[in-house]
Every structure is written in structure tokens, then in C-alpha cells.
């Protein structure tokens, strides 16, 4: 599988969309953090550290597009056949893609953090803790995207389901804000807090500081939730994967 992983990484690093994404991640983070566009009002009051976290939402949108389009090429071009023919199982193909996407995320986050530091972010909490929380949250999100991509072959449906997940995350978190603030109490609120942080969107909102304290479970809990989400998504994706017939 290490060979598959190396082959995938080679392709990703040569992919113009990914390279462009990393450049944009750096430039936009730098511009936003340093407030080069001259935003006033709420954005100005945020300060460089919170602005840096705020702009990281773009990575969520990026991987919503990149993961399905890139991985679905396996089926569109039929290249997965070469891998199966070479003796790899479908699970190995899946895991090689998953880990290469995680690596791609790590590379993009490095560009993002570098842009943030140059833009003026200084808080260790932002640079280390929030970045770590966002990294694991996005890993969970990528695992969810991979579930859609590996299980659905038609690219149109993959794209629709990927954006459906994104929309659902957004709406759930918006509704969750209201429920957590006004409706849920006691044990229900604790459950609500965990469910809220199952969404990468929710964790991002918590890191930006735009939410009430009631939805914040702490960085360690957020990371545990993200790891759990990743594990569940990986488990669901791999059920019966090797038994699936390929055309």
C-alpha cells in the first residue's frame, strides 16, 4: 500500500488544482489575517488570530470539491482497474487515497499557518490548538467525502451528495446554534454539544469564537469527536468494499 500512497501523492503534488489551492490558502490567509483588504466593523474587531481561523472555512469548501473530483477519477478513467490488476484490494486503494488526502490537507494547512504567521497571527492557541482542532475536523470531513466518492460511481451524483453534505452541515449548525442557545438544557444540551461538534462546520464556528460558550466542549473533546467521526466513516466505507464488483 505504501507504493499506492506514493503514487497518489505524486499525482496530488502535480495536480494544478491542489497546487493552486495551496497558493491561494497562503495568499488569502495572509491577506485576511493582515486585513489587507481594509475590512471594518466586525472583521476588524476580530483581530489577526480570529481572522486567520475565520478564513480557514475555505479549506472546507476546497476539499468538498477536490476530494470527490480527484478520487472519482479512479472510476471515470478506469484506473482503479490497474490497481486491482496489480494485486491491490479495493480497501488498499481506499486507504491509500484517504491517507494521501490527509497528507494533502496537512500540506495545505502548513501553507495556511505560514500565511497566518506572516499576516500577524501570534497567539499559540490559534496557531497550535485551533489548527490542530481544524486539522482533525477536516480529516473527519474528508473521510465523509471519501465515503460518498468510493460508494457512488457517477460523478454527478458524487458532486450532488458532496454538496448536500456541505449544505446539511451548514444548516444543522445554524439550527444547532439556536437550539443550544434557547431550547436544549441539561443532558440534552450535552448531547447537543457533541452532535454540534460532529460537524466540521460546527468545530470551525467554535474555533472562530462566533458561537456561544454553550457549544464549546474544549479542544481535546473536539479532537476526540473528530477521530470518532473519521473512524465511523472509515468503517462504513470499508464494509463489503472488497466484495464489490468493478466494471
Amino acid at each position, binding site marked *: 500500500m505504501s507504493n499506492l500512497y506514493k503514487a497518489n501523492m505524486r499525482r496530488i503534488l502535480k495536480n494544478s488544482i491542489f497546487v493552486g489551492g495551496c497558493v491561494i490558502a497562503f495568499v488569502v490567509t495572509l491577506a485576511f489575517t493582515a486585513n489587507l483588504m481594509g475590512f471594518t*466593523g466586525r472583521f476588524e474587531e476580530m483581530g489577526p488570530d480570529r481572522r486567520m481561523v475565520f478564513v480557514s472555512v475555505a479549506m472546507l469548501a476546497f476539499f468538498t470539491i477536490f476530494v470527490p473530483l480527484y478520487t472519482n477519477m479512479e472510476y471515470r478513467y478506469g484506473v482503479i482497474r490497474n490497481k486491482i490488476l496489480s494485486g491491490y484490494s479495493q480497501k488498499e486503494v481506499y486507504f491509500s487515497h484517504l491517507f494521501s488526502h490527509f497528507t494533502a490537507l496537512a500540506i495545505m494547512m502548513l501553507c495556511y499557518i505560514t500565511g497566518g504567521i506572516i499576516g500577524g497571527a501570534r497567539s499559540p492557541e490559534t496557531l497550535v490548538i485551533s489548527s490542530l482542532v481544524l486539522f482533525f475536523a477536516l480529516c473527519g470531513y474528508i473521510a465523509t467525502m471519501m465515503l460518498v466518492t468510493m460508494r457512488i460511481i457517477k460523478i454527478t451524483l458524487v*458532486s*450532488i451528495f458532496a*454538496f448536500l453534505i456541505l*449544505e446539511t452541515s451548514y444548516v444543522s449548525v445554524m439550527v444547532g446554534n439556536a437550539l443550544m442557545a434557547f431550547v436544549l438544557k441539561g443532558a440534552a444540551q450535552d448531547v447537543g454539544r457533541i452532535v454540534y461538534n460532529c460537524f466540521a462546520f460546527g468545530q470551525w464556528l467554535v474555533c472562530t469564537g462566533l458561537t456561544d460558550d454553550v457549544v464549546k466542549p474544549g479542544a481535546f473533546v473536539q479532537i476526540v469527536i473528530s477521530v470518532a467521526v473519521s473512524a465511523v466513516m472509515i468503517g462504513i466505507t470499508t464494509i463489503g468494499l472488497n466484495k464489490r464488483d468493478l466494471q
Partner: protein
Amino acid sequence: MFRNLYADTRNILLSRGFHIALRVIAIYQIFYFLLIKIVFIFALKQTMAAEEVAFIFANIAAFLVTAATLYISEREFSNGCIRNKIISGVRRTDAFLSAVIGGMLQGALYAMFACVISTVISVLFTGGYMTFSPPEIADYWLIITMACMTIGAFSTSLIMIFGGSKICYVIGLLIAFVIKVTNAFVLDALYPTKGFCKLTGTKLMAYRFIDRFIPYSYLASEPHYDMPSYLIGCGGLLIISVVIGLIVFNKKELS
């Protein structure tokens, strides 16, 4: 042109994507109604007004119309059917306009179907409309329908422009999502829950423009502008989509 339009329309009405979209609309509305009804019965212990559930289709309209038109129109390129049309002598302009009209038809049909489901639920299972008068209800649905038709046309134009490349699979959905998120900020800034709108100058103009003249925004809140504004917004986006789409599609290399 009309033969092509008939063929495309028939294709849409018989396609699986169209029927699935209708089922999704029905299931979504029924499911949402049941959820809210349970909250009203057990938590709030009061009669539910029709307004709580009548216009929920607007929440998913942009995504649904974009996804459905993507699924149905993209086949033209993936199956190579657009090539057959051009080879058979159909003019590119006719092929494009027929596809866009098909997109508008889809938008209209989805909105009308949602209206029927909503009316049935409202009349049979709720306490009736408390704040909306019949003309206001009709206006709201008319605006939703117009917005859906415009979004259907816009989404189809994007597919015809970018068809054959990877970007056509994501661009419509991405625009719908970004505008949805932007609308939340725009509405919050223009109509804050506490206090008054603090926007001034260019920012105020830009936010107002988005709220008043972008059809995606018509689905984000109840109507609060005059009908000519909505007509201008829908008509404007339609004309821009068609003009730019025709120019690009007529010059596009089809593989």
C-alpha cells in the same frame, strides 16, 4: 427549434432525475411538517399555524433545482447526445435555448409541485394561515416559482457553458452554496435582530443589491420588495445567463 424543444421536454419529464426530485420535495415537506407538528403538540402544546411549514420548500429550492438540472442536463455531454444534435443539424442556438427553457420548466414544475403539497398540508393538518392573506400567499409562491425558474435557467446555462469539463459538476452547486451563506450575512446586516442597520455607502448599496436583485436571495426570506424588483432580478439574471451562454456555447469546441 420546436421539435428539439419537444424532444428535450419529453426527455426531462420522463427522466428518473425529475421524478426523484419530485419525491424529494414531497418527502422533505412531509418530514419537516411532522417534525414541527410534534414540537407543537408535545413541547409548545398549541395549534400550529400554516406559516410554520407552508414555505419550507424555499430552504432547499436553490440546491434542489441546481442539483436536478445538473443531473439531467449534464447527460447531454457525458452521453454525447449534444454531439448527435449538432451533427443532426440542430443549430447550437436552438440546442442551447431548448436546454435553458427545459431548466426553467423544471424550476417551475418543482415550485408548483411544492406549492400543491404545501397547500394540502396547510389546509388539512394545520390551524390555517394566521398572518398571510391569500394574495400574499399567492405572491410568495409566485416569487418562489420565478426564482426557481431563473435558477434553473442559470444552472443549465452554466452546464452548457462548462459542459465536458470537471468544473461543470461543481460550479452551480458551489454558487448556490456560497450565495446561501452570503445571504445569511447580508440579511443579518440589513435586518439585525437587535438594533438598526449600521451599513452605509457602498456596502449598503451592495448588500441591498444582493437582497433585492439576486434571485437566490428571494428564497432566503419572505418577500419584502415590490414585484417589479423581483421581475428585474429574475429577468436580469435570465438575460445575462442566456446572452453569455449563447456567446460561449456557439464558440465552444465540442469533443
